[in-house]
């Protein structure tokens, strides 16, 4: 196909003005009047706007002394169940949630019933959360200083990996019902992760899922990634997850205080 006019360059074709001919290159021979156009070099990063807004979200979180997690995973991998259980286990008020789904407020209702503040974002046709949606949700959620915000992304192992939200950490939930080769099939998602939670380990006796192989596959695309085995249903392994949350939350805040001793005092006001 001709890259300039889009017509098929080896077939005879008819133009709007009725002329009929075969495509003849160069294009001056083909176009009936010369087109003048200006070539403008842009060198613009396509995701620059989202990344800039994600940077603003990160600054907002910093100012408010809040640590944010981007919680990702396939539909049905147990993200919401994990959050429900986590909310009940942590100190009341220490975890607030932004729920991303294409439709319904079902998950927000579950989170509210578990006792946490929550804002539901419905993306409509969108397959991922972006930084604008999270900025609006954070303003509405108004998390309290020194709290954690879990941003539950739309269930999807592809699209959310490309869109930064301003989060401090990225957690990917992989359930044993999905298959241990998922990190190889969805490398972008696992490459972006700080922590992989292998969930539903209470089902291991019923599925052909090799946890070692799954974690090995995650490390093949992301050598430094941490991994924990949990069951949001039975509670197995969750103590290690809570410890990770406390460590990550505290470590981030401690780092900030170390860099800027006035920070903690300011966020108290």
């Amino acid at each position, binding site marked *: 196909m001709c890259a300039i006019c889009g017509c098929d360059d080896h077939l005879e074709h008819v133009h709007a003005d009725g002329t009929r001919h075969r495509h003849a290159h160069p294009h001056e021979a083909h176009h009936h009047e010369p087109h*003048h156009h200006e070539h403008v070099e842009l060198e613009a990063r*396509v995701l620059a706007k989202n990344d800039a807004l994600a940077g603003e979200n990160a600054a907002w979180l910093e100012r408010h002394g809040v640590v944010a997690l981007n919680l990702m995973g396939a539909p049905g991998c147990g993200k919401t169940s994990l959050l429900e259980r986590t909310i009940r286990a942590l100190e009341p008020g220490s975890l607030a949630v932004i729920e991303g789904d294409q439709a319904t407020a079902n998950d927000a209702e579950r989170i509210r019933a578990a006792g946490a503040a929550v804002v539901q974002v419905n993306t409509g046709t969108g397959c991922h959360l972006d930084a604008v949606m999270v900025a609006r949700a954070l303003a509405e959620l108004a998390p309290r200083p020194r709290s954690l915000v879990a941003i539950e992304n739309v269930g999807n192992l592809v699209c959310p990996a490309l869109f930064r939200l301003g989060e401090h950490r990225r957690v990917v939930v992989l359930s044993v019902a999905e298959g241990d080769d998922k990190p190889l099939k969805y490398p972008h998602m696992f490459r972006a992760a700080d922590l992989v939670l292998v969930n539903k380990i209470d089902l291991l006796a019923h599925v052909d899922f090799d946890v070692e192989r799954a974690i090995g596959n995650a490390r093949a695309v992301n050598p430094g990634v941490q991994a924990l085995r949990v069951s949001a249903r039975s509670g197995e392994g969750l103590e290690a997850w809570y410890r990770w949350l406390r460590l990550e939350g505290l470590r981030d805040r401690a780092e900030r205080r170390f860099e800027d001793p006035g920070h903690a005092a300011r966020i108290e006001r």
Partner: protein
Amino acid sequence: MHELGISRNIVAIVGEAAKGRRVRRVTLEIGKLSGVVREALEFSFGLVAQGTPAAGALLEIREIEGRARCAQCGAEFGVRDFLAACACGSRHLAHIAGEELNVKSVDLED
């Protein structure tokens, strides 16, 4: 199908540059490790561009091969995916090319 959202970003960037003029061609640089599917991008760009200065514009996509540098021994080499390992055995690689997602240039009508 994040290509739809990416197309919206492309059309916004191009629309700003066009300043009301018609866009004849949009040249993109897409790294082969960027996680963007060329066909999905072409399809969604056509849809999103409708009713904008980029309507009917040709999309020229230049694909960029992946390259990595080994964090262990410093060797540089081509990579086709994120599973590559260095000849020295290390998997700790910095990807130095192949993740591009850029609007390189536009051609505007006078």
